[in-house]
């Protein structure tokens, strides 16, 4: 029986969602943080999209957000010239790190002891979170605002992207190792540790490079300008979204377009696979996050496989908090 994807819409933000990140898998599941231009990043349960809390404190649009591996800490980058570190269990603000311009990107090391930031002042900063008052290590070299900064190679290297270049830095010497010139403005960057793959998007291109050498492995062209792409943990497929409001899923090996979905009411700014690869989340100009199944029809999270032959119920109102009735968004279907 052919199944049709039912995305789960997470509402709550009042302005465009510009960044999102998943944590690793923890004993309490995995978590999702979303950065929004309304200045109020939100934490959600990763497999259901249920809202857990909102980090209150920033005084401007939040451009970047991340969680540490066990989702006990969150970090955010904002237009108020600060990056903040938060307790992701209590929601309390722990540290505010003042910058000289808009901060766009934040990333924890695997041990959560250091925070990397990058932004419009074109500098990479490395903060020791056990000594937040101390001056950070500063890495200069970018000639335009930094859009994304990520730890790589077991936190021994740094990958950073500005408008037209992607640079690889050695952390211990704080010097540039390699630079890659990109034909068009880089819209997103994702680092995949297993296999050391760097996913970059620019224009309609989704490109895969070696994170160690920056050599290109392969690239695909999409039908529209792509703002973000994510590689499945098992590297079987990738998802991408951009200016035509649609999400595309491609076979990583062949480049064949497997699926595409409409659903968002605005350009998609960010898309990420969950750590277990069972779903991917997209954030859009329309202010929503949507969760999409990797394997459509599989029972997982809030998605429930409907047994063929049974009628699907259509409730008049939204189901109450306590009832778990199975329903679909289209009229009753009789098999």
């Amino acid at each position, binding site marked *: 029986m052919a199944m049709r994807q039912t995305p789960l819409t997470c509402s709550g933000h009042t302005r465009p969602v510009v960044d999102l990140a998943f944590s690793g898998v923890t004993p309490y599941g995995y978590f999702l943080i979303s950065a929004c231009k309304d200045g109020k990043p939100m934490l959600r349960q990763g497999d259901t999209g249920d809202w857990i809390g909102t980090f209150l404190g920033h005084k401007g649009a939040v451009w970047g957000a991340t969680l540490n591996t066990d989702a006990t800490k969150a970090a955010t980058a904002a237009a108020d010239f600060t990056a903040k570190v938060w307790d992701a269990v*209590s929601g309390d603000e722990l540290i505010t790190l003042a910058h000289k311009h808009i901060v766009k990107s934040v990333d924890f090391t695997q041990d959560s002891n250091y925070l990397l930031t990058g932004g419009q002042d074109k500098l990479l900063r490395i903060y020791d979170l056990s000594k937040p008052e101390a001056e950070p290590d500063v890495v200069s070299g970018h000639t335009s605002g930094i859009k994304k900064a990520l730890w790589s190679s077991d936190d021994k290297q740094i990958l950073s992207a500005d408008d037209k270049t992607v640079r690889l830095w050695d952390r211990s010497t704080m010097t540039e190792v390699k630079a890659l010139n990109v034909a068009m403005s880089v819209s997103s960057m994702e680092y995949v540790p297993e296999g050391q793959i760097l996913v970059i998007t620019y224009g309609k291109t989704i490109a895969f490079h070696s994170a160690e050498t920056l050599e290109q492995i392969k690239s695909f062209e999409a039908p529209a300008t792509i703002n973000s792409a994510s590689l499945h943990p098992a590297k079987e497929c990738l998802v991408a979204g951009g200016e035509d409001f649609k999400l595309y899923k491609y076979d990583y090996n062949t480049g064949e377009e497997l699926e595409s979905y409409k659903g968002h009411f605005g350009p998609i700014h960010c898309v990420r696979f969950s750590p277990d690869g069972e779903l991917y989340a997209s954030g859009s100009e329309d202010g929503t996050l949507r969760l999409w199944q990797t394997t459509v029809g599989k029972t997982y999270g809030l998605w429930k496989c409907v047994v063929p032959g049974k009628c699907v119920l259509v409730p008049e109102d939204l189901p109450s908090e306590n009832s778990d009735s199975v329903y679909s968004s289209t009229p009753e279907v009789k098999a």
Partner: protein
Amino acid sequence: MPVPVPVGVLRLPRGPEGSSRGFSPTSPRFQALLGEPVAAQGVRATLRERYLRGLGAARGRPTRFCLRAGVCVEAVFGAADVGAMAFQVDALRTPLGVQAAALLRCTDVLAYSFLLD
């Protein structure tokens, strides 16, 4: 050509609750990582209530206070301040005479007792 059936969902993702910032202290993760065991909170609350009732019961009664250095005095219990840092007493009997009203520092009081009739 069969019409594709949309995947069923149990419910929609829960959204923010009003103006609350969330991070509920009753969530299993909060309790496990940050919370005091619920049983301990209950015990603390019970003990606190008993203590306050004890102070209320002492009011107006002749009370014996054992202070440091083996000093014992008797007075009529008046009141305790909010943080139990001081007790106000009437007719405090000291070796120097009877004080009509006095404050006893709680840090000096080792024990106090009064009779319930």
